[in-house]
């Protein structure tokens, strides 16, 4: 598979201005076949704008957006994708079955209603009007509308916002199933664990600029540190003063130490607190990497 056919959606040096606000500043992004790309960033970072450009909802002021090799917006390209937007505005007066039926009519070979119901978990809701559903149920219906057409690529803008933990896990499982069937996914999220749970690659946006882009491993490696976690009575200010300790903080009875050189720190820790329990050392997760990267960019 050569590069051009492997690319599903891309931005090349794309910029977009809304009034005085530069929402996106020369961003280059690529979603390839079968991969999961997470767009991370704080509110107002430009994640939604990036999706809007790739889907053809908005046009870039400069640079280029493509979907399946052409300008976004062609009927053919739209039949091969599914999207869940943040502001969905689904009419509350239609019931769930009517919404699914309407969207099914847009595709030459849509998924069966039974499949959609099973995948999105909207079984008991078909006869309910959209307006009468809870926020979490509405998100599930929006997901159902996104997968109606058997898409080769899904664009999910903060899909699990407003979902409880159980519903989020269920949605992740469904998304993993679609990924395993070869569906590519572009995901924006506030939840770092969501990106960690699903993504192959991560792009971090901040103030409209791409500040980091790479595999999960590469992003993690941006933070060279390791994290030591234990239950200890030592004061965090004392620990923070040790050599080799970059940061120490307390969460309840837990003490968290960030360091580049865990071995000498561990020796000192065990020496000074013989009562230490539940000791673990791990590589910094995406959460730490993200904090670190956005701090550098600020």
């Amino acid at each position, binding site marked *: 598979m050569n590069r051009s056919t492997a690319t599903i959606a891309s931005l090349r040096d794309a910029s977009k201005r809304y009034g005085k606000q530069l929402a996106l500043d020369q961003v280059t992004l690529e979603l390839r076949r079968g991969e999961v790309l997470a767009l991370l960033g704080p509110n107002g970072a430009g994640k939604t704008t990036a999706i809007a450009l790739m889907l053809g909802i908005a046009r870039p002021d400069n640079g280029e957006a493509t979907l399946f090799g052409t300008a976004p917006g062609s009927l053919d390209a739209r039949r091969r994708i599914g999207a869940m937007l943040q502001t969905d*505005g689904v009419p509350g007066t239609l019931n769930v079955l009517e919404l699914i039926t309407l969207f099914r009519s847009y595709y030459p070979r849509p998924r069966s209603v039974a499949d959609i119901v099973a995948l999105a978990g909207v079984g008991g809701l078909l006869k309910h009007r959209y307006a009468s559903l809870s926020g979490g149920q509405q998100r599930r219906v929006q997901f159902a509308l996104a997968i109606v057409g058997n898409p080769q690529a899904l664009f999910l803008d903060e899909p699990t916002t407003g979902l409880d933990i159980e519903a989020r896990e269920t949605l992740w499982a469904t998304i993993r199933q679609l990924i395993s069937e070869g569906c590519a996914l572009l995901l924006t999220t506030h939840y770092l664990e969501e990106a960690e749970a699903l993504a192959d690659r991560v792009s971090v946006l901040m103030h409209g600029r791409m500040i980091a882009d790479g595999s999960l491993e590469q992003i993690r490696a941006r933070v060279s540190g390791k994290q030591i976690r234990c239950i200890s009575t030592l004061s965090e200010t004392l620990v923070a003063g040790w050599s080799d300790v970059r940061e120490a903080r307390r969460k309840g009875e837990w003490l968290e130490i960030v360091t580049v050189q865990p071995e000498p720190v561990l020796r000192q820790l065990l020496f000074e607190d013989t009562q230490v329990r539940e000791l673990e050392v791990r590589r910094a997760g995406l959460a730490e990497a993200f904090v670190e990267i956005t701090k550098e960019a600020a």
Partner: protein
Amino acid sequence: MNTSLTFPRGALIASYALEVRYEFIRLLRTPSFAVPTLLFPAMFYVLFGVLMGGHASGDNPMAHYLLATYCVFGVMAPGLFGFGITVATERERGWLALKRVAPMPAGAYLGAKMLMAMLFAFLIFVTLAILSSSLGGVRLLPTQWLALMLLVVFGVLPFCALGLVVGSYASAQAAPAIINLIYLPMAFLSGLWMPLRMLPNMVAQIAPLWPPYHLSQLTLYVIGQGGDGLVAMHGVVLIVMTVVLFVIAQRRLQRAG
């Protein structure tokens, strides 16, 4: 994979039909739209055309005149409200964007809304026809009924276009207020409630600015209640107004999208 080749024509028509059907269902389930749209023309007609119009049988010029003008008043609502408010809301809240990302057939969005408005216009015509012929003593030739019906069903389109302009510019909050500011004064100034000759001269002089005036001149003409008889001129003005307004709105919607 080229999916577009495998999309049969029948499926496309089915998609349009569903779009129209759900557009209609949605508005029927919205009492704040359906009730005033379907009932107000009938209520006003009974009140002013029948009860206050004098004789319940025989020659009743008021019942005739108001049939022609309330038909016009009736079709203003589905056009203005059905387009103005729903488009503003759907544009602002992202439903339009989601449908544009989904492979909705081109033209289905506005096409469905237009057919929905024509359907409402037809229902309003039927209501007024029944009331006027039973209670109002209105007698027309079958060809006159037919011509009136066609005027009503297609006469909704200029108001769709005007509503669309409002809907493509105004916020969802502002749209209802703006539409009401257009709707009621325009109906009055076009002589729909009272013949223009009973109104100040100035009102009659500026009446040609308003689309309802032109449509009412046509409806009055076909039922033989005057109108100035410049049928072609009024028809052309309405068509030009409709096209210009649609183009303005369409350009705005494309830029906003």
